[in-house]
């Protein structure tokens, strides 16, 4: 078993990983930037080391410095969390060279899944359904228009290296496609250093539903049901829940079986998530695979009773999965909301100093906090300051508990999206399970009022 883990991350996920390390009797080492020196996770870990300046290149992306600290502190493994170096195949490869266990899948698989068009092609070959479209990069905008004509409008133009919605845009006709092509390609090149573009048919009113998988290095794989993460702003998730209010058991099992077959075909191990779009007729289409722990993993933990970080550590330590598919339970309903330091209407970031933080305490409420009651929320990092997770025996009960918890949740000093979260949670369409990806645009008016 792994003895000492360096956590190459920050914020709530670093605290979360420390918690599981402590439970398992594993020593934890935190690393932090200058901006994070007073962050809660730094004091929670057994040891903590300064990485460098506040910019991510000087700190959380500085692999050389991370390896130096891992050596100095005698760590035998690295947990990358999510974001930062978690999906950097070269970082995973370097870990092996430095005699460190990378808690995640094989670097080659990370690399393949990192390019959306390559991942699409690979998954298509394993038999997973993909959105009708192109499984290779486009040559230019003319070819895009030619292919889009065959697929049928509206189409979604996407960057192969894209993420966070960058380089992605809907085109309703040829004129629009030609108009947006170069701008998106330029953005993709600027942000990801890769201007490869491809197109897919636009799925109307889709749900975003993902399957959590676990696989050990002995060829055993299971799925831990689904999470529905349809409610998004700027293509980033805001509400996540398990189980999905939309899926029936037949679709759920079909998606799980297809996901397991796909990861077995590509030789995947450790935790991973296959993201799907599900249309109104419950057809599902592979979108992308995240080769790491996800932000929203707690809702899966709440309904299965499993600790996903513990499972990741056990798999990375060379243990076999201790359970089979038919032994995985599903109990109750769990919802997670992401609390962002941002304007609830424009979604513009709102860094600053927190002057008061009060969170409700109940045995059915779980908090993952990146901040304390006097934290300075830096503009250098992601705006997510906390996650609020509730559990209920039914979806209705979970929603009622969420509404109450949000009412009692208090963050002062900075703007947060709490007003938006409260509006969504209390909205009858949310309660009815009308959780399509355009929920916020459709039901929440621009001025912040509810429709």
């Amino acid at each position: 078993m792994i003895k000492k883990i360096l956590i190459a991350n920050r914020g709530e996920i670093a605290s979360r990983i420390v918690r599981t390390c402590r439970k398992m009797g594993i020593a934890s080492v935190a690393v932090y930037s200058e901006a994070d020196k007073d962050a809660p996770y730094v004091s929670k870990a057994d040891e903590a080391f300064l990485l460098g300046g506040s910019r991510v290149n000087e700190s959380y992306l500085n692999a050389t410095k991370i390896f130096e600290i891992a050596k100095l502190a005698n760590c035998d493994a690295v947990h990358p969390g999510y974001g930062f170096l978690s999906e950097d195949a070269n970082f995973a490869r370097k870990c092996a060279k430095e005699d460190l266990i990378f808690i995640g899948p094989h670097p080659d698989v990370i690399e393949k899944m990192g390019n959306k068009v390559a991942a699409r092609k690979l998954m298509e070959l394993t038999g997973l359904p993909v959105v009708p479209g192109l499984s290779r990069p486009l040559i230019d905008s003319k070819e895009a228009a030619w292919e889009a004509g065959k697929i049928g409008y509206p189409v979604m133009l996407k960057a192969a290296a894209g993420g966070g919605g960058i380089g992605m845009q809907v085109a309703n006709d040829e004129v629009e496609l030609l108009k947006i092509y170069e701008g998106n390609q330029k953005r993709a090149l600027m942000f990801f250093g890769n201007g490869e573009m491809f197109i897919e048919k636009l799925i109307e009113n889709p749900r975003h539903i993902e399957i959590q998988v676990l696989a050990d290095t002995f060829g055993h794989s299971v799925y831990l049901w689904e999470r529905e993460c349809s409610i998004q702003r700027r293509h980033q998730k805001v509400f996540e829940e398990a189980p999905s209010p939309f899926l029936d058991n037949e679709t759920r099992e079909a998606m799980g079986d297809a996901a397991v077959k796909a990861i077995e075909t590509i030789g995947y191990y450790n935790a991973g998530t296959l993201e799907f779009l599900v249309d109104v007729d419950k057809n599902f289409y592979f979108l992308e695979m995240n080769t790491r722990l996800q932000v929203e993993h707690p809702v899966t933990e709440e309904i299965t009773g499993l600790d996903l970080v513990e499972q990741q550590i056990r798999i990375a330590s060379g243990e076999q999965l201790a359970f089979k598919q038919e032994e995985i339970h599903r109990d109750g309903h769990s919802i997670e909301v992401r609390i962002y330091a941002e304007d609830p209407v424009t979604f513009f970031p709102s860094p600053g100093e927190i002057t008061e933080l009060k969170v409700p305490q109940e045995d059915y409420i779980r908090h993952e906090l990146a901040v304390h009651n006097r934290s300075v929320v830096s503009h250098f990092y992601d705006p997510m300051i906390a996650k609020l997770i509730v559990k209920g025996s039914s979806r209705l009960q979970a929603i009622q508990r969420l509404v109450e918890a949000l009412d009692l949740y208090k963050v002062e000093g900075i703007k947060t999206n709490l007003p938006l979260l409260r509006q969504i949670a209390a909205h009858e369409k949310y309660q009815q399970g009308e959780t399509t990806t355009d929920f916020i645009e459709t039901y929440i008016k621009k001025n912040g009022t509810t429709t």
Partner: protein
Amino acid sequence: MSEIIASMAGSVWKIVVSEGESVSSGQEVIILESMKMEIPLEAVTSGSIKKIHISEGDFVNEGDVLAIIE
């Protein structure tokens, strides 16, 4: 005359134009970066860039005047 005003606190990621350059209404002039989000600021009127008050990498607050168009 019109001003380019920071719509959020963050750092100046890219200055797309230079002083004296003519710009048209709606053109991206400055891109701000904060919390992993990039916000382009557009010219609200056509004209020429009279003055740029900031450099790439500077930290700005919401409401700061970053450039002037004449």
